């Protein structure tokens, strides 16, 4: 039940002695790295070149380098933790599950979008470049503003639409009908595809591959009745026809979704429906 105006949020000055933050320059990041000796047996040395940004420290982005000793089978995310926990606590990144299912840690790694928890040290050593994903405003270091991404996702009505009275038990769906949209159910909304797309970087309007993937998931679900509404949304100038099939999205997807194919299927659905 949405009643945004009933009880507006009320900012109020708390008592002065409860102010958390003191004014003044924050401590310079990059300070106090732990001295790392040579790699132990079975370890490798990895240099991380990380694109940093913190408007409270400097107006522009800069690069920092950290050298850490890691096991070859460690994840790049483990190396970033090594940096954050033992070299520079100010490094900001998002992460949670650490095995490629939550979608928090999409980054630009050696120029390609990937999840830091699905890249192993041995595949990038001795040196790796890490930057935030592109096309979304950087808030701090590797953290970007995800709101425009989720707004695009919400625009495609990403939920089952079916006003018919459901049966007492499950709706029936054959394995073939279920298989039709299987691939696009895998999406974890990490934004690796959308932020790898040159059209998405180029203008702020293209809804992007991830939103189309999530529309596809319902458009091709035999139980759904909302395809027409979604296809109308995706047929407009911010929609699927901006796609230039560069396949960046398919290469970037950490879930192996055939993103470009899904976009093409949505394009075809619109054309057959219309023509």
């Amino acid at each position, binding site marked *: 039940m949405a009643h945004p105006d009933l009880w507006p949020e009320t900012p109020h000055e708390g008592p002065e002695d409860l102010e*958390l933050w003191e004014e003044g320059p924050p401590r310079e990041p990059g300070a106090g790295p732990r001295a790392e000796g040579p790699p132990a047996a079975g370890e490798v040395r990895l240099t991380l070149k990380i694109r940093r940004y913190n408007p409270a420290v400097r107006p522009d982005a800069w690069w920092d380098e950290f050298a850490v000793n890691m096991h070859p089978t460690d*994840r790049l995310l483990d190396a970033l933790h090594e940096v954050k926990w033992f070299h520079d606590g100010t490094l900001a990144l998002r992460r949670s599950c650490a095995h490629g*299912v*939550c979608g928090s840690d999409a980054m630009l790694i050696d120029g390609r979008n990937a999840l830091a928890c699905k890249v192993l040290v041995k595949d990038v050593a001795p040196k790796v470049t890490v930057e935030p994903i592109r096309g979304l405003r950087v808030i701090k270091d590797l953290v970007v503003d995800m709101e425009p991404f989720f707004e695009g996702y919400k625009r495609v009505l990403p939920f089952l639409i079916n006003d018919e009275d459901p049966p007492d038990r499950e709706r029936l769906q054959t394995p073939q009908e279920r298989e039709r949209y299987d691939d696009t159910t895998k999406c974890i909304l990490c934004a690796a595809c959308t932020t790898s797309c040159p059209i998405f970087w180029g203008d702020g309007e293209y809804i992007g591959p991830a939103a189309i993937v999530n529309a596809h998931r319902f458009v091709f679900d035999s139980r759904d009745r909302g395809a027409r509404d979604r296809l109308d949304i995706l047929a407009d100038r911010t929609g699927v026809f901006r796609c230039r099939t560069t396949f960046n999205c398919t290469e970037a997807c950490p879930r192996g979704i055939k993103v470009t194919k899904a976009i093409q299927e949505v394009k075809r659905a619109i054309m057959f429906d219309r023509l």
Partner: protein
Amino acid sequence: MTTLHTYDAVVVGAGGAGLRAALEASKSVRTCVISKLYPTRSHTGAAQGGMCAALGNVEEDYPEWHAFDTIKGGDYLVDQPAAIVMTEEAIDAVIELEHWGFPFNRTLRGRIDQRRFGGHTRNHGEAPVRRACYAADRTGHMILQTLYQQCIRTDVRFFNEFYVLDLILSGDGRCAGVVAYELANGEIHVFRAKAVLFATGGFGKIFKVTSNAHTLTGDGLAVCYRRGVPLEDMEFFQFHPTGIYKMGILISEAVRGEGGILINAEGERFMERYAPTIKDLAPRDMVSRAIYQEIKEGRGIDGKDYVYLDVRHLDPEVIEKKIPDVTEFARIYLGVEPTREPVPIQPTAHYGMGGIPTDTDARVVVGSEERAIPGLYAAGECACVSVHGANRLGTNSLLDIVVFGRRGGGHMAAFAASEAFPDLPERPEAETVEMLRHLLKGPNLELAADSMSDLCGVIRSEDGLRQLQGVLAGLRDRFRLVGVQDRGRLFNTELMEAVELGFLLDVADTVVAAARTRDESRGGHYREDHPLRDDDHWLVHSLAYRDADGSVRMEYKDVKLGPYIPMERKY
């Protein structure tokens, strides 16, 4: 500056339990969800294998059989009325998800397909039964997605990347709201509410090797514990048998449900000796102990502390269609091709059976008399209903979150609709600000805890637990000196990690204290110095309270029994 918000109902956490509760509560009262992550990052999404319900779609099955398995699987520490509620409501819960678009795998006739899972049997233990409804091996992912999709459809209000750091109680002992920290800009928010439901998930990060996300730091448990709420049955922690060697990433039990087997260094299918009837599909606590026993007796692979999970004999199409994700984990993280090579696995810390004590409406209840704290609720892994008792069966966690999330959301909405707002105490954010200031000003120290896995893991003993309490006390002393390097207000994840570390220490204290006191073995709690179950003394739930000096005080309450008489647990 503090921002004040007012909602009838506040849900803390946006995993399956939180989202399901929010969908229910927001039907009738003004509701918001506060989550430290974007909702789709929640660890419900990592659950793989399935959600059990006695649909009987592929073979005969009844909720009563499901209830029995749940109670026996929990080594009779389960509150039987709660397990009966859960297993009876399971069918409706599955059907509701299907109507919301959940992409279940299907039978040839188009019905929801079902498969086998550990500890789920036909007719009270005769043989494994096909009871788990699933979507390949991403069932949790699809539950999280489906519930989030419904939240978008119904326009549920979210505060994402807000950390709840304190619970506000009014002078007369009612729940009055929570204090939260906004990660993006470091601001403090007070959420005034008539009802609050905690659904903050687990606390597996007290262990070094765990299947849990980095963010599973027991926040909701610690916040409630610090305000005087006891934590129930914290000594019961589940170690899942099949974690990826050294990393702890989970390989789903569905792999064994589809026919995968465990083998030791001699190539022997050793579970045939430990559970002759259901073998590799014995409950998780038994399989984990069996693996430890094999390792202890020198039959670990190459004499090391792991065994093999073997799927080489399975049809490659079954692997591709029904367990694709977990085989990909083996390929990526171990460089092992499961269709040709066995997968090295070892038990991994997985699930806390204990938590914030609740009744079957998810109301938080304290003391042996189960007195409700008006307006305070908990559901999901952070809660203890108790439907899992001393050991949870696979798939019952996904069932737990949707059943008790819905019940809690419904009850809190009815409560909020009939009650006035409680008075807020003066300066409700003061203690939170003080805690954060302390961390911002202290010196920068490293902290790491790895003793939990060794001394409070699958096998425990009085000596080890006593030693561990010393380790934890030392860590607490050091924690008092912890400070962060990042003093900025912008996206200060270091500050929040320090707060989470404090939460973990509190939770670990309760786990170790409860484990040391319980000198018997039951379910996930195995004491090598007291290897037998002792129903005469220990058929009770433990309650860990925080004393004024910070130490843990143990109390106990009765288990709610029912139709099933405790008997020896054999499979």
